[in-house]
């Protein structure tokens, strides 16, 4: 077999197997270098894979040489590729840029463990994305969850600890719900392979367990994805985590859960459960709408910058679900590309936040007054990220809002209501982003903050790379668009 054929497996193995090695590298900076190299390598693999899947082909890899459904198979299509780009991209940028920030927040002797957990979180998320086996997804979900708990618990504030504990309880309940759902399906079909499940599920006559399974899986993953109203764990966890962890996880953590949710619902249940489509739309749509509006409203009045952005994440995930619950290709395409674009925007914002945090101890919005005078580059990057979050043309965020509104318009009078809500929440986003920008730029600095200076260069460069990425993908969105449209196609009308 050639090297290229092994790429799907290498995508997981590289970060996974570097994790144990990293904890042995105690000399200062070595663990970071190894972890950064490993993440960067997985980013390259993800790019290489995307080059293949962008043409619409899907890759599979039989682990251990055992064919599905007897063995575990990895499968990578355009949708997974997009997620891989998000996950590895966020991981790589955050770790490479974040050394300065992590050095401040994590004691040197704990850093090898921290970086190891970082790699494990990355490997877990990747494993979830590319696995084609329902139970294997659970295993890698647990790797990523446990590693995320570690990363978040690394926050210097003591409030990080109860926040992590809450996340741990919620995450475990979510994973167990998922396990119950998978168990019920397994009981009815005898298989764990997703494609095989779909084929065999259509022969199942007793629908009650199947409906319950759909419910358990959806709720379990919604807990992980922090879908409103199951998001309560998220704001505290993001707020008190180390800043780089927030940048990493906010860009991709919940998105992978949404990805699995969409995959399960559209691949396994969609065609097989009578009225499942309607139920999916019927339950998810109101939640998505409520979540978007309420979380945006909370963000409008939130005083702490990281919490504000965390609530904004909950709101933005609402858009993704709105698109998905339209149940057509254009809606799905909008939500898939929003996954990508929102990751870009949030990564830029949280990287900027991390830069600010290096100079400002307190991240309440009021404390950051006048930061633009001393940290002009950081603040400008924040503005670009904010514009993308709002959806101003020329940024990535615009593309997804545009596509979302366009697909919503297909739905007559109800569509107009949806447009109104999307527009309203965009305006709310304008408000909460502007509140911060105004403080950064047009408020007089506090006396204690006069002497701060610009963030470290690496961090600044990385922040700007992501910020400019927002602009680049806003003007030349071809790659994510193509991937997203393939993804939407496969989700809607994948080969039976």
């Amino acid at each position, binding site marked *: 077999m050639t090297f290229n054929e092994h790429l799907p497996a290498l995508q997981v193995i590289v970060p996974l197997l570097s994790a144990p090695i990293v904890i042995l590298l105690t000399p200062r900076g070595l663990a970071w270098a190894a972890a950064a190299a490993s993440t960067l390598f997985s980013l390259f693999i993800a790019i290489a894979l995307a080059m293949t899947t962008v043409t619409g082909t899907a890759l599979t890899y039989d682990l251990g040489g055992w064919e599905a459904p007897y063995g575990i198979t990895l499968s990578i299509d355009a949708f997974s590729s997009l997620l891989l780009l998000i996950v590895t991209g966020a991981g790589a940028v955050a770790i490479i840029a974040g050394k300065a920030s992590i050095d401040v927040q994590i004691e040197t002797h704990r850093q090898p463990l921290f970086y190891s957990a970082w790699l494990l979180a990355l490997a877990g998320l990747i494993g979830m994305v590319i696995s084609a086996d329902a139970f294997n997804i659970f295993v890698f979900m647990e790797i990523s969850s446990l590693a995320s708990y570690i990363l978040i618990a690394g926050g210097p504030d003591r409030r990080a600890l*109860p926040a992590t*504990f809450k996340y741990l309880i919620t995450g475990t309940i979510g994973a167990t719900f998922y396990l119950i759902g998978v168990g019920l399906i397994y009981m009815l079909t005898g298989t764990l392979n997703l494609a095989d499940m779909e084929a065999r599920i259509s022969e199942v006559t007793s629908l009650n367990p199947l409906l319950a399974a759909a419910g358990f899986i959806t709720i379990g993953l919604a807990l992980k994805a922090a879908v409103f109203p199951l998001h309560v764990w998220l704001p505290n966890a993001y707020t008190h985590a180390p800043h780089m962890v927030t940048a990493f996880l906010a860009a991709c953590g919940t998105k992978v859960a949404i990805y699995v949710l969409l995959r399960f619902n559209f691949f396994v249940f969609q065609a097989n459960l009578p009225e499942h489509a309607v139920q999916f739309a019927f339950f998810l749509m109101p939640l998505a709408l409520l979540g978007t509006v309420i979380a945006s409203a909370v963000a409008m009045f939130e005083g702490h910058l990281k919490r504000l952005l965390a609530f904004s994440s909950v709101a933005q995930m609402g858009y993704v679900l709105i698109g998905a619950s339209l149940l057509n290709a254009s809606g799905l395409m909008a939500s898939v590309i929003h996954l990508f674009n929102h990751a870009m925007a949030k990564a830029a914002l949280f990287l900027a936040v991390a830069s600010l945090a290096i100079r400002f101890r307190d991240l309440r919005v009021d404390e950051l007054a006048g930061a633009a005078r001393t940290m002009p580059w950081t603040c400008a990057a924040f503005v670009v990220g904010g514009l993308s979050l709002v959806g101003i043309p020329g940024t990535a965020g615009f593309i997804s809002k545009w596509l979302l509104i366009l697909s919503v318009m297909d739905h007559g009078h109800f569509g107009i209501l949806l447009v109104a809500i999307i527009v309203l929440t965009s305006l709310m986003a304008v408000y909460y982003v502007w509140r911060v920008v105004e403080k950064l730029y047009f408020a007089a600095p506090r006396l204690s903050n006069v002497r701060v200076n610009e963030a470290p260069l690496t961090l600044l460069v990385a922040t700007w790379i992501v910020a400019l990425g927002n602009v680049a993908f806003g003007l030349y969105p071809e790659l994510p668009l193509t991937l997203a449209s393939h993804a939407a196609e496969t989700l809607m009308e994948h080969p039976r």
Partner: protein
Amino acid sequence: MTLIEILGHFNYWVFAILLMVGFYAVIVKHNLIKKLIGLSIFQSAVFLMYITMDKVEGGTAPIIQPDLPDQIYSNPLPQVLILTAIVVGVSTLALGLSLIVRINERYGTIEEDEILEAD
């Protein structure tokens, strides 16, 4: 109804009851250790559900006995899955407990409401 049928239903009822007992403890209890214990009961219940479905009437544990060609074996797959799940469960517990220890050090309590009040 034969005994094994009753047992079959009984297994699922017990699964449901255990799940509820565990879930109740997780949601309602304030004590963090109690929450974790509840979580482990909650997970054990799911293990029981999986293992229940591996049973085949008249079967034995799936270790092939070449001298008995007509032997029926129980289903190995759920067992493998649950082996994994048990280990996942204990890992989560260990991590949760280490968090509790640290919370106790920083807050002086392991009762959730007192922690919320402290911040």
